[in-house]
């Protein structure tokens, strides 16, 4: 059996990869995918902890996170598609009317 710390380490690695992805990628869609990766790494952590504690709470949390992630997909893709329709690009370096 794979020990729990290994899952937690994987979760931390995935979360870090997601966070780095958000910071270095310039395409809005890829950034959004990186955020989804972060959410799913959290799910892995929740499930692992639930197993460790022998409680169901962490597994239930995963369902809620999945729902929130789905809602974010709906809203996020709508916003990104709207931008693409008017500008033909979703590169965040080209979307820079607001500066201060």
């Amino acid at each position, binding site marked *: 059996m794979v020990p729990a710390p290994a899952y*937690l380490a994987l979760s931390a690695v995935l*979360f870090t990869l*997601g*966070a780095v992805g*958000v910071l270095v990628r310039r395409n*809005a869609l890829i*950034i*959004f995918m990186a*955020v989804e990766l*972060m*959410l799913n*790494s*959290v799910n892995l*952590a*929740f499930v*692992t*902890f639930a197993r*460790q*504690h022998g*409680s169901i*709470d*962490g597994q239930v*949390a995963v369902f*809620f*996170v999945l729902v*929130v992630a789905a*809602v*974010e997909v709906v*809203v*996020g893709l709508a*916003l*990104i598609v*709207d*931008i693409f329709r*008017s*500008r033909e690009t979703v590169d*965040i370096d080209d*979307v*820079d*009317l*607001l*500066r*201060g």
Partner: protein
Amino acid sequence: MITPPAFDLTLVAPELIVFGTALVVLMVDLWLAAERRGVLIAVSLLGLAWAAWMAAVAPDGVSFAGMYVRDALARAGQLLALGVTAAGVLVAPEYLRRGGLDRGEYYVLVLVAGAGAMLMAASRDLLMLFLSLEVLSIPLYILAATARGNPRSQEAGMKYFLLGAFASAFFLYGVALLYGVTGTTRLPDLATAVARLGSSAPAAAGLGLLVIGLGFKAAMVPFHTWAPDVYEGAPFPAAAFMSVVAKVGAFVALLRLFPLTLGALADQWRLLLGVLSAVTMIVGNLAALTQTGYKRLLAYSSIAHTGYMMVGIAIGTPAAVAAVITYLAVYAAMTTGAFAVAIALERGGGEADRIEDYSGLAGRAPLLALATAVFMVSLAGLPPTGGFVAKLGVFAAAVEGGGPGGLALALIGVLTSVISVYYYLRVAYVMYAGEAAGMVRIHASPLVNAVVLLTALVVVQIGILPAAVTAFAQQVGGLLR
């Protein structure tokens, strides 16, 4: 056989009413002719008034297996959220009609976001807090992008969404870590477990991640960079609403989380929050000095006020908690008012978003200019307005209960307030001393005028006779004793 936990629907009546109102508005809008959209505003306001009455009279209690709590803090947060939601509904219609954005969904989104803030105030569980945070945030992303044909609004929506989802992921990872350390997400159990296990790296990291998530919503430095861009790009009524409702939700949650739940472990978070509040006060006020846009000025102003309210949270004494509630009420009134004035103006078919657009306003609309002057004086924290009472309360609590660190925070607060007088009173100055700006038209809508009048009265009332609000706020502080 699994028995579902007992729950009490009367306890969550205020939220249910607001969600129900949102659904009714959504359905009624389908059958309503465009010129009769006033019905939606009436329905929304009736629902909000009913919810406010229920929130005021409903008894205290805990329900939904301990995930939902109604106490003085929940009540304060809910009444504040209902108030700013009503203002968010009232300031919108005239502007939306002018800009060809008049859709019923706008009011639905405002109502749902308001209900999210109410749930944040009543969350007694980290998972519940996360869900409420999302119910509050997701409608705000859409509201920021509500002027769909306008590239600036689209950009504001996308920026807010991407950064907001990023911050939510941090918040959620913090929840997972705390769950891993303690085996629970209920706040009271969490507090006892953390106290029993002592400080550990994962618990500290979890708390830090929660601060990041909530700090983003409250526009705390260094998680504030979205605020000026999003406010600038979002339509004025949406910016007015999000600048207050997100603050109400985030600060009530911070109060619940840190002073109320983890008060016994203050050593672990006080320094972090204190440093963040100092940095937020300094950066917000210095950056506001050079702004020429009205929305960007208010954005940095909202960042600065986040810093002042954070002082109260970092101190965490009963007096400080009460002061934060008073501050939130004053902040909501004066910021909504300052935005509402701008909604009444228009330059060349667009928004009057430059400070010079307010030049000479006193000669053309004396009452509007007077109200703006009141808001600016209050935002700067000068007597005899609510802003003075609010700042005095926070700084006095910091000096009394915060030791040397509290004294330092109060000193930074007073010094940065002095700086803020310059940029706030510059707006008042151009209104009274400048020449009338060409191209700027005044659209006197009765609803917007009512919001300006009411918020100005609240600001002056709290400034002169603060007793009613502070007595209510002290009940919240009393939760700590």
